[in-house]
């Protein structure tokens, strides 16, 4: 597995952001909210499923109230681990709780053009280009739809987007941009072409569908129906809460965790009631709204705490987690982007979130930056290296070498040094040059990152998608457009 894919695995350090008792308390509070306050499910099908399992359904308001026992029985059916299959089986990702994989962020609406640097609306070609560059990196393990293909019809946009990614990368595709039943059914047809039939999707889910909830305490009808379609065919699906302090959630962190958890837990239970044992994941990108404007912030200490706390909850439910990290609120790749993306990704990684979303977007997941994409990849590499920790054994203690060098010598010519020097992290985008060189060139990490993206796009040849498969996908999409 993961031939060319970088992941955090067996970290040498741990972080306990919530005690077991605190997690249980949040869980109990969540069950109380689902039972007493209820969660809105604006989908006829979803309400039918809840009613048939004995939940209290208010059809007028489309609010479901379910007993703790029903929720807990449903959650117990979730598979604790499963693979995200890739078009290239060597790049399958096992969500087993011991791997942290990174995806591209999504879904932006503007792009800082790779060549001119100007900001413009995103289009289908951007989806292709970003997928191709992501395919070449070791850090990006799977794709989200990074930006919206606004130059194609909204009715089939989600399908054009996943087709474009498959044509430019052999890694797993998780779409966050298909949120109605019609497109979800067509997406199943497209995915089936990659694995020789729908029946094979269960063992080789080359596509997964992420849905957003509608906080506080609600879901979107189309999203629910799309998630149910995914579960029907064994494609992993999950609900992402973006409940935000002050606006769509309480001002307090624990309270906001309860609101988000109630949305995700109730949505997940619905999937299990409909399709017991279907692969599901927990997804979250909680944040605090800005105190002055109410806007989405995309960073700050609250986000960092959510990154770790949500994983504690997902672990408690034994469900893989897809966690919002990176996704800075910064307007360009700068100090703020570095601080926010490093800390959010560190907190989510040390807690072993299974999927991190993701690299490349600025301004609260709205503007794609190729430079930021590359810099985010390096942030992940630094964190991955850090979490490997310090190994203390005879070889690493290097006592013989220390004795051989003695006081006042140096270690540069030692065999031990030669043997282990490649264990030292070699950055691509940290400026360690002499000051005089910087003074002369006045360039830096952002320039190098952009240059690397340009070079990669120009040179990388992804494992091609069979022309016939591609044409067939095109026919399915065209048929839907008629």
């Amino acid at each position, binding site marked *: 597995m993961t031939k060319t894919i970088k992941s955090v695995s067996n970290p040498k350090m741990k972080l306990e952001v919530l005690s077991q008792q605190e997690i249980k308390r949040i869980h109990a509070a969540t069950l109380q909210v689902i039972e007493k306050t209820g969660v809105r499910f*604006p989908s006829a099908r979803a309400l039918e499923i809840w009613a048939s399992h004995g939940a209290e359904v208010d059809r007028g308001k489309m609010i479901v109230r379910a007993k703790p026992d029903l929720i807990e029985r449903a959650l117990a059916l979730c598979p604790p681990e499963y693979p995200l299959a890739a078009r290239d089986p060597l790049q399958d990702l096992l969500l087993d709780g011991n791997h942290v994989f990174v995806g591209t962020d999504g*879904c932006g*609406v*503007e792009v800082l053009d790779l060549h001119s640097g100007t900001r*413009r*609306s995103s289009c289908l070609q951007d989806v292709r280009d970003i997928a191709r560059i992501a395919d070449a990196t070791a850090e990006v393990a799977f794709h989200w739809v990074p930006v*919206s293909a*606004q130059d194609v019809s*909204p009715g089939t*946009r989600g399908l054009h987007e996943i087709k474009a990614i498959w044509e430019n990368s052999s890694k797993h595709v998780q779409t966050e941009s298909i*949120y109605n039943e019609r497109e979800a059914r067509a997406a199943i047809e497209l995915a089936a072409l990659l694995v020789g039939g729908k029946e094979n999707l269960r063992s080789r889910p080359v596509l997964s569908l992420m849905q957003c909830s*509608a906080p506080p305490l*609600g879901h*979107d*009808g189309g999203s629910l129906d799309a998630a149910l379609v995914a579960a029907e065919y064994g494609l992993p699906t999950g609900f992402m809460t973006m409940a935000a302090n*002050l*606006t*769509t959630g309480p*001002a307090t962190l624990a309270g906001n965790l309860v609101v988000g958890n109630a949305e995700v837990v109730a949505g997940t239970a619905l999937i299990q009631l409909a399709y017991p044992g279907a692969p599901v994941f927990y997804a979250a990108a909680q944040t605090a*709204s*800005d*105190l*002055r*404007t*109410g*806007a*989405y912030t995309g960073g700050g200490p609250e986000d960092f705490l959510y990154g770790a706390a949500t994983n504690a909850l997902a672990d408690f439910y034994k469900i893989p987690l897809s966690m919002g990290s990176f996704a800075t609120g910064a307007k360009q790749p700068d100090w703020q982007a570095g601080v926010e993306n490093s800390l959010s990704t560190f907190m989510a990684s040390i807690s072993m979130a299974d999927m991190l979303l993701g690299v490349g977007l600025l301004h*609260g997941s*709205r503007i794609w930056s190729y430079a930021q994409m590359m810099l985010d990849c390096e942030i992940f590499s630094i964190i991955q290296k850090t979490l490997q920790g310090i190994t203390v054994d005879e070889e690493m203690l290097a006592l013989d070498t220390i004795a051989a060098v003695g006081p006042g010598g140096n270690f540069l010519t030692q065999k031990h040094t030669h043997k282990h020097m490649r264990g030292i992290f070699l950055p691509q985008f940290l400026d360690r040059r002499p000051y005089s060189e910087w003074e002369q060139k006045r360039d830096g990490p952002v320039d190098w990152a952009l240059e690397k993206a340009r070079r990669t796009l120009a040179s990388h040849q992804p494992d091609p998608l069979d022309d016939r498969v591609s044409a067939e996908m095109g026919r399915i999409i065209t048929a839907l457009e008629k």
Partner: protein
Amino acid sequence: MTEELFKKMAQSIVDGDSDLAVSLAQQAIAAGLDPLEAITMGYVIGVNQVGASFACGDAFLPELVMAGEAMKSAVATLEPEMQRRGTTRQVLGKVVLATVEGDIHEIGKTLVGTMLSATGFQVYDLGVDVPAARIIETVKETDADLVGLSALLTTTMVKQKEVIDELDKSGLRSRVKVIVGGAPVTRDWVEKIEADGYSEDAIGAVDVAKRLVSGS
């Protein structure tokens, strides 16, 4: 005594206390005070005070919204008395607000509504998932000056254009200004669909709305 009551009214807005604002309005009616005076010499003073502390960074959005809600409740309580006396409150303009068809995202739109009504606009909030036809109908019924359209998804954002096209077809476009909002809305989009204005947040939306109705 009246002075005292006006002060309390202003304070109820500063404290964002809707219940108190309503009960003070009832007291004012019982005492035979002019509701318009209660608004301009009482409540509005509070709104201005909160606005000023917000502007210098001392107050936060929740305080602004709570003040807005309290103001709305007070005005609603005074409304019947104003009608009885045949007086009307001077409004800055009439605004029809909606989240477009296919989209259920509410909070940004609602926030804009609260801010506009606190500033002195008459707001007709149609809620979420609102078809273009209903928006057009309401614009006609209310003789609105402004239409505010919210969308959170790139796939529903196209409905903002649809509403503008429909306004055009029904001959209303020259009579109303259209403002749009939502996370995916950019200046490019606003220019493309020929909307009259947009803002990235609710506070900014008030400035845009004021500017548009004053015609400057």
